[in-house]
């Protein structure tokens, strides 16, 4: 008998933080909150939309009856695919249960210069560097910029970032913008890369990221962008940065209720506008450090909250945007490696769909691509654990065990030849002998991370040369038009 009945050969170890009852209860907490407290929505069009769907509207406050919420959840797609723009499939993203994609994070003001290792403002050239480096890293499943560009026209950092990044990586990008106008420019570039609007709808090639405000507020631009994405079938994230003890309750369960509630506003808007459009929630979930008054990106609570949130979000049938690989460190050190490895492992075990902020340091104020390179290795290590142990006749190798018998070794066995390459190989962690290590210059992990990052920076070209001339021209044209637009307009953050 070769086959077995209802037998699992593979089982990914996933930890479970919450019981079914607890998930249900938090879900109901969200229903109660949205029904009785409601949320402020600073957008007339959105309020109209909610009103028509059966919500009670009082000023800017919107109260959501539970059927409006469950209806929205019923139309969320179980699976969405996002495609690399070059027609290849290796880096395709499938947004569905049990698939995790890790990536950097968006928009810190500072960046660690890859040459001087000093912290400085994030510059335009950094966006393409981050894109290229991430393009080369096998464990970065999607890309964000790790900074907001300081040396372009004020109000256009979002558009320049996308223009430069999309041409330097085929890994799908998660973009952001100040307002709908930026969103539209980015979308035009996405379409330029896809070939046509029709093709974009068939094969979307980027994801958009927007944020409601804790507690329970959707500001004009956030919901405006959310609605634009829904209309144009752009897969999107709508998730807050909830600060435990600051903008949400200090208790984790309370934080989850608020974070889930404010995100749900975006889910409902997106599904009312375009049922079946992809919407992902989650966000930054951590605590306010009550001594130093910083939002902690290295706290163990970040891992716990994110993992618990993942379970609740999945319970709602939604994909989860989680967080890992980030730290409160000011400069690469043991703290950054430890905080990152803990959160990466927890995010992996939680089964979140997108996991951002790999490369965030100084509590989200400084992007560090060295950290991203280190995180890439940590992610691959965590994946080994997540893969679990395969158990079947071949892997149990009872036959081979009998062949070798007691004593002896397995180095000559065909079975070993067939299987040993499954073992994980380090690219940064050092396993050499002491003598070899001395001979090779006594390099520490930090030295090796710097070396690898600079090597990619200097020698990996990325897909820049493959960008179709027509798309390239179109992007330049969009940038020029954006400059014109900004002269006339008042973008968010530039009133």
């Amino acid at each position, binding site marked *: 008998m070769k086959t077995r009945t209802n037998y699992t050969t593979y089982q990914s170890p996933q930890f479970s933080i919450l019981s079914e009852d607890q998930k249900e209860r938090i879900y109901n907490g969200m229903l109660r909150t949205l029904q009785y407290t409601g949320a402020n929505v600073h957008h007339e069009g959105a309020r109209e939309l909610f009103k028509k769907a059966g919500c009670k509207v009082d000023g800017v406050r919107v109260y959501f009856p539970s059927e409006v919420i469950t209806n929205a959840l019923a139309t969320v797609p179980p699976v969405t695919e996002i495609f690399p723009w070059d027609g290849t499939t290796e880096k395709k993203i499938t947004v569905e249960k049990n698939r995790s994609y890790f990536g950097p994070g968006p928009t810190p003001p500072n960046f660690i210069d890859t040459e001087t290792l000093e912290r400085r403002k994030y510059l335009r050239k950094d966006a393409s560097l981050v894109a290229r480096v991430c393009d080369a890293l096998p464990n970065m499943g999607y890309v964000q910029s790790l900074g907001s560009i300081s040396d372009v026209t004020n109000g256009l950092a979002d558009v320049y970032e996308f223009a430069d990044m999309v041409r330097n990586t085929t890994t799908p990008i998660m973009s952001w913008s100040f307002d709908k106008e930026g969103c539209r420019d980015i979308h035009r570039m996405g379409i330029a890369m896809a070939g046509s609007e029709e093709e974009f709808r068939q094969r979307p090639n980027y994801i958009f990221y927007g944020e409601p405000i804790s507690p329970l507020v959707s500001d004009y631009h956030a919901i405006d962008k959310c609605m634009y994405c829904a209309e144009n079938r752009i897969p999107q994230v709508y998730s807050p940065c909830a600060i435990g003890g600051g903008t949400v309750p200090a208790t984790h369960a309370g934080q989850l209720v608020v974070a889930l509630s404010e995100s749900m506003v975006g889910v409902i808007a997106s599904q009312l506008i375009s049922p079946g459009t992809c919407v992902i929630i989650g966000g930054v979930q951590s605590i306010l450090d*009550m001594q130093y008054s910083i939002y902690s990106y290295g706290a163990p609570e970040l891992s716990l909250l994110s993992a618990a949130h993942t379970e609740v979000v999945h319970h709602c049938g939604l994909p989860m945007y989680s967080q890992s690989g980030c730290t409160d460190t000011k400069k690469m050190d043991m703290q950054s490696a430890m905080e990152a490895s803990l959160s990466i492992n927890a995010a992996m075990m939680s089964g979140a769909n997108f996991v951002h902020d790999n490369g965030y340091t100084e509590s989200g104020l400084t992007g560090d691509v060295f950290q991203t390179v280190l995180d890439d290795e940590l992610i691959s290590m965590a994946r080994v654990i997540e893969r679990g142990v395969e158990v079947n006749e071949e892997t149990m190798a009872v036959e081979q065990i009998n062949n070798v018998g007691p004593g002896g070794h397995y180095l000559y066995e065909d079975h070993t030849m067939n299987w040993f390459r499954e073992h994980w190989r380090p690219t940064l962690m050092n396993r050499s002998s002491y003598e070899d290590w001395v001979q090779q210059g006594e390099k520490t992990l930090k030295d090796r991370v710097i070396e690898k990052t600079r090597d990619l920076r200097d020698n990996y070209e990325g897909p820049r040369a493959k960008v179709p001339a027509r798309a390239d021209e179109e992007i330049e044209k969009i940038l020029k038009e954006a400059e014109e637009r900004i002269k006339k307009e008042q973008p968010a953050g*530039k009133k």
Partner: protein
Amino acid sequence: MSYDLGKITETLIQGKVDRLTELTQEAIDSNAEPAKILNEGLLPGMDNVGEKWKNGEMFMPEVLRCAKAMSKSMDILRPRLTEGELGSAGTLVIGTVAGDLHDIGKDLVGMMFEGAGYKVINIGIDQPNENFVNAAIEHKPDVLGMSALLTTTMPRMGEVVNSLKEAGIRDQITVMVGGAPVTEEYAQEIGADLYGANASTAVDVTREYFAKAKN
């Protein structure tokens, strides 16, 4: 009736808002000098709280509770204090600049200033430049605080400084700026007087500044 300044200090450190208000009122009813209540009762209490916070013995929510108690007590004392007696406990107008929705950092700064005895007028987030100028004209604050959390909104702070000049009131007001991406150099660049990296240093820096100005 009698009063006990030590008790006032102690109650403040314990963050008992209502009790402190009562004790302050009782002290006044017993003819304690208001300046004495402030300088020998309240301020030593807040100094102690600040110290404990820095040492990790007390944490923000506790500190803010004490600041609230201080502020309530000051509401009673302020009308009874002369300008000179008020000393460093002036008025702060604070807000987040236009296009910027980051709320909590600015609130924290405001609350810490309340703790330092200031009257605080928090004008909110996403405030157009003219609202800062108008609030400055209306409330005549000692300190005008501006918060910006985005590199794109930071320029608003310099614009407000210029508008204050245009309105002819720049030299009557101490301008203080802060927010995660704001730096000391940037504050100087735009012509602000003070920069505070976080809520507690903001208070310290302001105190030092006024102490120097006096000498």
